[in-house]
């Protein structure tokens, strides 16, 4: 098998008496679409937060593309090629959709140029292309605070995608979106990920979404990975069906 893209070794973290990362040893390989499932409080978002530098573990290491990123800041991790979207979309609410993409693109170099206009951070055609991919081109010049939740999610993801990451980590990309819109949203996201050949991790509660879009599933229970493998195998596991899916 190819060299792992993301690897965690012995990750440990507890908030008071609540263990949220219990010796997590995990590897992700290029091209995989990993769904992370688990009940609330199982440690899914904490795992993402550790991998993206938002929280530092009390023990263990995280390496990306062969380099240790455990103690790096979110900014440094983003610049190494990990993009991230959030459960609650994190947008620049006083900016337009286009400006959000331009500002995100400026992060490719990380340089805060004081004389280069924002619209020169990225060619206009590239902004149009990414907005076309996520279906937001028609709303490019609207304030992003005016977008409905589904489109906010897409913009949040588009802002991560414009950084051209090797790995995109999405925290509940379909939460807050109506059941009817979920599959359409995931279809758009997966089409873009395929087109740009980006490896992905997404936290998800909807079993249908997991079954349809993931190539691998990791199920979290009380801060540890209780099962990890192909979706059919993990979702058929009695412990997972009882403790994660709630049957």
């Amino acid at each position: 098998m190819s060299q792992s893209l993301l690897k965690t070794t012995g990750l440990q973290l507890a908030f008071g008496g609540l263990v949220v990362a219990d010796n997590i040893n995990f590897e992700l390989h290029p091209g995989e679409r990993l769904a992370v499932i688990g009940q609330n409080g199982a440690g899914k978002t904490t795992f993402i937060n550790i991998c993206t530098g938002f929280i530092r573990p009390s023990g263990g290491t995280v390496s990306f593309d062969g380099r240790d990123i455990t103690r790096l800041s979110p900014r440094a991790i983003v610049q190494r090629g990990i993009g991230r979207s959030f459960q609650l979309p994190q947008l620049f609410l006083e900016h337009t959709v286009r400006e959000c993409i331009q500002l995100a693109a400026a992060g490719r170099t990380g340089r805060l140029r004081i004389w280069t206009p924002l619209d020169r951070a990225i060619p206009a055609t590239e902004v149009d292309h990414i907005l076309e991919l996520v279906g937001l081109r028609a709303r490019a010049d609207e304030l992003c605070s005016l977008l409905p939740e589904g489109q906010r999610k897409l913009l949040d993801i588009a802002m991560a995608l414009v950084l051209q990451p090797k790995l995109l980590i999405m925290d509940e990309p379909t939460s807050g979106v109506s059941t009817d819109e979920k599959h359409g949203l995931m279809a758009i996201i997966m089409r873009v990920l395929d087109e740009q050949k980006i490896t992905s991790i997404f936290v998800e509660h909807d079993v249908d979404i997991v079954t349809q879009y993931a190539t691998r599933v990791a199920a979290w229970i009380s801060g540890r990975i209780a099962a990890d493998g192909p979706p059919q195998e993990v979702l058929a596991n009695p412990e997972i069906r009882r403790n994660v899916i709630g049957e």
Partner: protein
Amino acid sequence: MTKTTTSKMTSPKIKIAGVLLVLFALGLPMIWPWLKTPMVVATSFGIAALGVSILIRSGQLSFGHAMFSCAAGYAVAFTARAMPELDSAVLILLGTAFGAVMGMVIGLFVVRYRAIFFGMLNLALSMVLFSILGKFYSLTGGTDGIRLARPTFFGVRMERDGFETTLLVVAVVLAVALAWGVQRYMMSIAGQALTAVKTNETRLEYVGLSANRALWIGYVISAALCGLSGAMFALMQGLVTPEMGYWVRSGEIVFISILGGVGHPVGAFLGALVFEFVKLYSAALFTGAWQMVLGFVLIGLVFFVPTGLSGLLFRKEPK
């Protein structure tokens, strides 16, 4: 509803307001020469307010920025005393550079804080400077301050009237250039990142841009502008005192920024002009109660024009 930042830059109302302000600032003192001093003071305050409004656009309020004006004023006074042959233009540049360098150093520390902590740290630092200037009498002249002999301007030694006229023209030209420069900066990657500090710092970090660095750049620019303001003020008054850095002066700069509105650089000068004239006339007409008049103006503004006077220029006509 749509919005683009470029539309603000090209708004015809803003251009008209800018041209009227310039004509007003240069024209009226030609008719009534006594207006030269208030006009230079208003323009100088406007430049300081322009600096503070940069920080307000990042969601941060500084209640201590007069320290940069004050320190730059003292830098100009000390230098002019040590080298009396130095020209006013050089002294203005020196004051600006001093403000910028001071902003670079203090900024390294204060940009790590936000909101009330940012505001209070700036206030505290300004009060430390105020105390030092007041206590070290042998060096700073204490509360009496330091007098400046009138230096040459562009190599020419002038009488008071000529000096004030030149300073007024220079101040207005600088104000126009700085308003354009600050608007250009606000449209830049660094400027837009600065406004994003206000709305979503977390996301800014997750697109690979440093929120602290964006704020530091804005802080240094604002300190430089306050330094320039202090240098001009010192040359105009021919005197620097610790009062220039007192917290009330910082509050006045914030007042002017809010009065004029922070949506466009024109607001800072609009606010400074209104502030200076309301203060001038209310001090003459309501001696001892002029602060109350200013207070009522601010209350009225918050209720009726929360976006400041320049906000009126952006207000959309009802369809």
